[in-house]
């Protein structure tokens, strides 16, 4: 695996995190509580800003420390998500359009949140719609396009489908007293995704293709724009300065770039390609997390991911998949242990015989390497080291260590379906996304399986399993049955054509 660290890194004084450990080796940051759709929306915010300024996916502009300008679009969000019931009520209660407007406009003047006193006039809407009823209908339609519609998140953390730049805005906490930005829903993972693509070798092609598909003018974007005053088009909030990606070159950056280029080149209408970008984008982050851990452990190949195509009964493939998942989940923690060993191996670590000096020396090393201080709580060099490791591991357990499982579940790769343990069992959406990203028109099924292994480490069939699992453990038949089930799955999705004998082709209906 070829990884090259970036030369632009933050100095430890610049960092506000209380430990700069995962951030140093994986980046700031991969946030476990961010779902694939929100990762994508955050990414789009960065991309749109860069595109506006003419440096989309530019390598140099993506170096630390970079920034982008996000939209708040408070008027839009108030209309769409602040007390959704009331709009419908006004529409129903008032036959007369003027009366309806009067009622609603006066209500929203008071009820709107996050706006200054001189921004509270929504009457610009009146001239844009013939009747209040039209306005209500279209707002209802837009609401039904909310991303992750069934969420119970606060209204200011709800988003609509990214029709275009007019529909993009950042996550905010809008309270009566103030508006602020937290990093729970938009946790910077989308920003990292942007930087990864900006450092892939296909960045120039992506810079041409992405705007054509995702920022192309269309009526829905125009509609969303008409729901906002002129001032909404200025993005003034500067974000992203603390985001840090430690590598300039990484095999997953290439995987991501190739996948997205293939998807963007498909003969799919803009909005139809978005769900596949969402899945493959987060899958890229998932692979980055996993394989960087492997790299830190000195591995040289992609981490294997044993996939079960859900079988009616527990069998060998499921067992292997469960075991494989557990090993993979623990990889990042193992990587930390390796990093700790490397510290212990530093000559300066055990330099001094005197405990007092050693303590001071170690404190300095830990501050320098990981920006960590114990605030004079410990008096013993061993206790110091123990305390650091405990805190680091606890912190890891809480968030970073969860990424493998939560991202895996989010993209439809990890599930407990049909059993009570997590393992890799891809959903139809996941299969569709990776098929569209890898098959140009048509490919023989065996070739397809080999490709999935070569590019991602995904194992479905006997040939690939043989290369990775112990030969004593290996009974080919269950894996063969697994690949047959995959054929049937793909066939029921209309993505596989079977010639009579043992000969099948996967096909991509959109790669004309």
């Amino acid at each position: 695996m070829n990884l090259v660290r970036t030369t632009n890194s933050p100095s430890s004084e610049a960092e506000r995190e209380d430990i700069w450990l995962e951030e140093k080796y994986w980046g700031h940051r991969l946030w476990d509580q961010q779902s694939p759709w929100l990762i994508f929306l955050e990414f789009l915010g960065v991309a749109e800003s860069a595109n506006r300024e003419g440096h989309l996916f530019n390598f140099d502009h993506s170096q630390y420390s970079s920034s982008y300008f996000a939209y708040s679009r408070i008027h839009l969000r108030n209309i769409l998500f602040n007390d959704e019931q009331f709009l419908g009520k006004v529409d129903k209660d008032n036959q007369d359009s003027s009366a309806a407007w009067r009622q609603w406009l006066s209500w929203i003047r008071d009820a709107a949140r996050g706006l200054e006193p001189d921004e509270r006039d929504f009457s610009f809407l009146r001239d844009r719609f013939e009747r209040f009823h039209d306005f209500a209908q279209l707002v209802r339609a837009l609401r039904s396009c909310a991303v992750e519609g069934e969420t119970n998140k606060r209204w200011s953390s709800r988003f609509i489908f990214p029709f275009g730049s007019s529909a993009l805005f950042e996550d905010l906490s809008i309270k009566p007293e103030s508006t602020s930005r937290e990093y729970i829903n938009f946790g910077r993972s989308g920003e990292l995704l942007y930087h990864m693509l900006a450092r892939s070798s296909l960045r120039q092609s992506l810079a041409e293709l992405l705007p054509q598909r995702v920022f192309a003018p269309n009526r829905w974007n125009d509609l969303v724009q008409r729901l906002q005053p002129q001032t909404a088009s200025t993005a003034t909030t500067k974000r992203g300065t603390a985001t840090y990606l430690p590598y300039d070159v990484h095999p997953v950056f290439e995987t991501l770039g190739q996948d997205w280029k293939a998807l963007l080149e498909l003969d799919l209408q803009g909005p139809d390609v978005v769900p596949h970008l969402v899945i493959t984008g987060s899958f890229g982050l998932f692979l980055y997390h996993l394989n960087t851990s492997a790299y830190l452990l000195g591995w040289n190949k992609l981490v294997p991911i044993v996939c079960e195509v859900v079988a009616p009964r527990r069998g060998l493939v499921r067992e292997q998949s469960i075991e494989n998942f557990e090993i993979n989940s623990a990889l990042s923690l193992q990587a930390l242990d390796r990093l700790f060993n490397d510290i212990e191996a530093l000559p300066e670590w055990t330099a001094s015989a005197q405990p007092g000096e050693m303590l001071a020396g170690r404190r300095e090393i830990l501050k320098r390497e990981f920006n960590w201080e114990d605030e004079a709580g410990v008096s013993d060099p061993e206790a110091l080291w123990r305390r650091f490791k405990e805190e680091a591991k606890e912190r890891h357990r809480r968030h970073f260590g969860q990424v493998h499982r939560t991202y895996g579940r989010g993209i439809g790769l990890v599930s407990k379906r049909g059993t009570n343990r997590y393992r890799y069992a891809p959903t139809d959406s996941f299969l569709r996304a990776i098929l569209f990203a890898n098959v140009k028109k048509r490919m023989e099924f065996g070739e397809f399986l080999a490709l999935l292994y070569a590019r991602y480490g995904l194992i479905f069939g006997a040939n690939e399993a043989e290369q990775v699992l112990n030969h004593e453990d290996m009974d080919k038949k269950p894996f063969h049955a697994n690949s047959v089930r995959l054929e049937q799955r793909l066939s029921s999705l209309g993505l596989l054509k079977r010639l009579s004998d043992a000969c099948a082709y996967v096909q991509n209906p959109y790669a004309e």
Partner: protein
Amino acid sequence: MTAKEWISFVRLYGPIPTKDNLYDENLRRHARRRGIKQVLFTHPYEKIVLPCFDLSAAPPASVILTGTAGDGKTFLCGRVWEMLGGDPDTWAGQKTHFQLELTAPAVAAQDTPRKVTLHIVRDLSAWVPIQGADWPAEKRELLLRFSRSIFQPNPSELFLIAANDGQLVETFKRLLPDENVQRAKDTIEDLLVSDQSERPRIGLKLFNLSRGSSSELLELALGAFLGHEGWSTCYKEASASDQLFGQECPVRRNYELLKQEIVQSRLRDLLDLCDQNGLHVPVRQILILLSNSVLGHPHVKDHLMSASDVPDVVAHSRSQASLYNNVFGGNLPESRRANSLIFDYLERFQIGRETSNRFNNLLIFGESHEHLQEQFHTFIGSDHFYGADSAFLAAKQDYIEGSDESPEAARRFLELLTSQRRALFFKIPNEQTDDLNFWELTVFKYGGEYLEHVLSALRSGRAIRRNLLGRLVRGLNRIFTGMLINSEHELFVASSASLSQVRVCRFLAERISVVPRLGEFIAVNLSLKKRPSLDVILNNELRCSFELTLTRYEYLSRVAEGAMPNSFSKECFEDVMAFKSRVMRDLGKRSGPPSESGEIVFRVLDLDNAGSAREERIGVLV
């Protein structure tokens, strides 16, 4: 040949476990030893393949015959060998690779005729080295020469290769890397997947025997099988009524049933429908079907009756020799049945497992029912061989009276009921479909309609009836919009705001008229592959086609009549969604870039109480 020997011979055609490549061997050996003629007929592809080797008539080209096991590829190779004067004894030997010297006409007027060597590989799987083994130099060389020859204008060597389609591509892959092999492999793959037989300027013709008509093969097989002299021998040698071909003999009864027009017609229909669902039945499987139908019985050796089994069967278990059950492999154990292609395909129709109130009433209450008595007698009561015998009537009585002695009894009756339903499928004549639609005994309730009013109509050049097209459009509308719309005259192409693949879609992209209007219309035609296809024509250049397989036809009809879009078949739902994507894409091409009008217009779809579509236009001022 005695009658006994004939029956033993017919058993060899049945579902006896033999290895594929020994099957033909067995039959040939047996036939020769007993002096029995094999069941043979002219393969429909003969008239296409043989002329390829008449070098005076056609430009020379190599031929690949492909298909699945039992399609008749090797057999056709034998016919070519015969036609070109090859020695039959040589052909009967063990080799798989043969050679013949042919004379090709001169290229230019003054040149002499050329010598061309024809290589015949009659079974590629038997000829190539096994997986993992090395290739002997001559074999590798031969295929390399083949790969080169098809791209040359006047090759000195021609080839006739018979191979299963899976084996074909696999073999060429093993010979890589080589430039010619790569080109050959790509060409072959291309022809295979696109269902075509040649490409311009390439000297190769590929015939996929799996693309032939299964029902045509059935006709030919029936003729050869039923007309074989072995059966007259059986009649001649018939003695006592409980002996082979006596009055009470089930083998004779089955043979005579198979000769009935109605039974043949149903079988033809079933195989035609298999074709329409993309399931091809090779010759070997058809012969298995015929042999099993006549001789099948669950409790004899290999589940096929021989002459000596007849008296015992007549005495104790004649109803179990029912042709109606044997057609579905009911006499075979589950595993054997599942492994036979023909029974697997026929099983998919679920004949006898589906039913309706009408049929259940007839079977259960018909005997004593005032209005149904006559029908009961005609179809069930008068059939002394396989109809309502004492066992059936007793079980029925138990079932009606509800004596729950054991669930065993109920289960046994329901099994007998299934048998009777299967029999009904083959007994009810077409004229009575209005009253007793026997297609309701299958999973394809619209199967009869599909055969008669769609396939038949299109094949004879007529358009399908307007109400049928209307029903299909209604089904599509319900799936496209996710609403219980009733419209039949227009196709509503709608999406939700964000995705075209979401269930309920209110935003209309366009309404496409069924009857011609401004260059657009919708019709059902036969495609180039001779399959029914629903075409949405947007203008002179834009045409979007949706192939109407039997399953898709059934699906759309059911949805039109009230079934939910995600019932019956998930695959069909996905297919319809993919079709919608294509239509939307073509609509986009037709309308071009949006015009400047000072307004963004949205067309919102809604339904009134009667299920009629109502469209509301909303304008947003720019």
